[in-house]
């Protein structure tokens, strides 16, 4: 993959030079692939590493958390333990307890991580796939096809997308287990940016010499698209994808917050926030604070990673 852009970086292996007075150490000539080069630069980006660390921790929590602290919708406190007021953070419940059903907020946040991350990443994947396909077709075909597809993108971008998603979720996501419906809705309305990006990348890459060479040798269109152009367009797509994840996590939280998102029995961060709203007059600040904090942390981490990737893939920046 990506034969064309292997820059064959010549790297003197100075760091690993053997100790001592020997002067005849070998100068290592290693050829690094684009991804190895990017990783070297990414490692130098402090914020991006922090973001990566946070995200890995969150993924671990999302996978292992619900096993360690299982959430069952029907397991509630005994009626005599229930008071209307929630309880603030304490040693046994560091994030406090909700009002009403007295659920542990930490438990809700940990279980919410699984759903919120799942929604953020899977809907991003759907959007990126659709956007890449449409953008590739538009950019590679050009002409009338390009014009029509880009007008479609213009139409979609003129609509207030969050509102369209809200309406779609309200109309189509009434079922009990609707998490995949929500994911698909977010994917279906989140591809336009990627399509524009991929199209512009294709427009420039398809004019490059190596594509011309491939075409001259008689390589078929499909192979040119997948083997020659797409690998070179991959890095900006990855950067754009990170931003989409962040947007989708916030968007899902908002749609759930309004009550049209994921069914309230599934504790996503948005749902937990949403149920906290009724308790504003009681001053249970810890209830909305922690799920919101989790959202901020996730989005920050993803944005840091996106910044790191952008710098890492930028051939003008040096590591």
């Amino acid at each position, binding site marked *: 993959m990506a034969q064309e852009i292997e820059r064959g970086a010549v790297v003197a292996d100075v760091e690993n030079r053997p100790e001592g007075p020997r002067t005849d150490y070998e100068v290592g000539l290693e050829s690094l692939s684009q991804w190895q080069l990017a990783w070297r630069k990414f490692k130098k980006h402090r914020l991006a590493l922090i973001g990566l660390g946070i995200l890995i921790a969150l993924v671990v929590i999302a996978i292992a958390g619900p096993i360690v602290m299982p959430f069952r919708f029907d397991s509630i406190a005994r009626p005599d333990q229930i008071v209307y007021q929630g309880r603030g953070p304490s040693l046994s419940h560091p994030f406090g307890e909700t009002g009403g059903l007295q659920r542990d907020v930490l438990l809700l946040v940990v279980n919410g991580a699984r759903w919120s991350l799942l929604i953020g990443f899977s809907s991003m994947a759907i959007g990126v796939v659709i956007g890449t396909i449409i953008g590739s077709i538009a950019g590679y075909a050009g002409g009338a096809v390009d014009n029509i597809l880009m007008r479609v993108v213009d*139409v*979609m971008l003129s609509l207030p997308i969050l509102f369209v998603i809200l309406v779609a979720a309200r109309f189509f996501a009434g079922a009990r287990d609707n998490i995949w419906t929500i994911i698909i809705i977010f994917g279906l309305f989140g591809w336009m940016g990627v399509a524009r990006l991929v199209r512009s990348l294709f427009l420039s890459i398809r004019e490059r010499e190596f594509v011309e060479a491939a075409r001259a040798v008689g390589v078929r269109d499909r192979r040119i698209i997948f083997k020659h152009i797409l690998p070179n367009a991959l890095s900006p797509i990855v950067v754009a994808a990170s931003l989409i994840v962040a947007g989708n996590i916030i968007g899902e939280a908002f749609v759930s917050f309004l009550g049209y998102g994921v069914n309230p029995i599934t504790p996503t961060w948005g749902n937990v926030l949403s149920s906290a709203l009724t308790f504003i007059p009681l001053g249970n600040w810890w209830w909305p604070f922690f799920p919101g904090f989790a959202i901020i942390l996730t989005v920050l981490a993803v944005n840091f990673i996106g910044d790191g990737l952008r710098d890492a893939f930028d051939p003008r920046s040096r590591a």
Partner: protein
Amino acid sequence: MTKYVIRRIVQAIPVLFGVSIVVYGILLSAPGGPTARFANNPRITNEQREEFKKAWGLDQPIPVQYCRWLGVCNPDGQGLGVFIGPKGLPNFLPGVLSGGTNGVLHGDFGYSIDSGESVMGRITRAALPTFILASFALVIWITIAVLMGVVAAVKRNSWFDQVATIFAYVGFAMPTFWLGIMLIFIFSGPGLNILPAGGMTETRLSPPFGSNEYWAYFGKQPLAALADIGRHLILPVITLVVVNIAGDSRFVRASMLEALGQDYVRTAKAKGLSNRSVTFKHALRNAMLPVVTNIGLEIPFLFTGALVTESIFSWPGIGKLTIDATRGFDYPVLMGVLLITATLVVLANLFADIAYAFVDPRIKY
């Protein structure tokens, strides 16, 4: 230049047409349809349901319904005559010429299912509160964002720049509704309780905003009424400002940094001009160019308002109207808001492009 403007306008027409089809399509594909609200009412018979459909033209084929809704077709016409308005000219022309009054092209968005008012009436009534909130927020956040961005760029890597960067990152990552909720907790919760948690006016003091009674009250006590609205404005404005400064200040900073790195800035410095003159006369003016067009793109916000913020602070504007319409499956209102919003976005884009081409002589059309 004229050619470019005309080309951009011509390009905008199919987009607007597409928007109208998508809006129509989304709401058409909604489950239940307009009679869904009667579905579970045992007192409404099937015949009555059919009557209702017939009265509203819902028994017609979908292209006909769309054509009437758009205002290209005249519902009273026969055969090919449907495209001709009462005055003998094509029906899609403005009412003065064609005599046509139906359809969104003539400003007729139908009637709200919820309240029976005309959609246009509901939207214009909600537009004023949205405009008040959005204009306050927009002016404040753009002022702060420009100041912050310029200072951060001029004093690059200073502590101010770093604080601004952190602020932008966090503001960018912060969900609007979460900030709104936390502000309500802090300022309207049982602790401080100094600011109202929502609404636009104190309901105990005045009639609901926008009603005739309200304007009578406003006429009698304008200062008290303004102060009341001002108190209710504080939290939603803060929410909007904090969330929006993040992106815009970064944009200003990037634009300013680029201008500061240009050759003419170096030339100006080499000539011995004062730092202040270089920064403000040479760099800032050029840096403001993309910023101004970017602000142009935010103008539709004055109408569409903030879906999220308005719904949290129950501000009686377009955003809340939208949410309420979604809640109540109020199709005509939803379609009206979507269509007007999208049209404004298209127009703002058009305007920004033209303005940019007009201001920046380097752009070729």
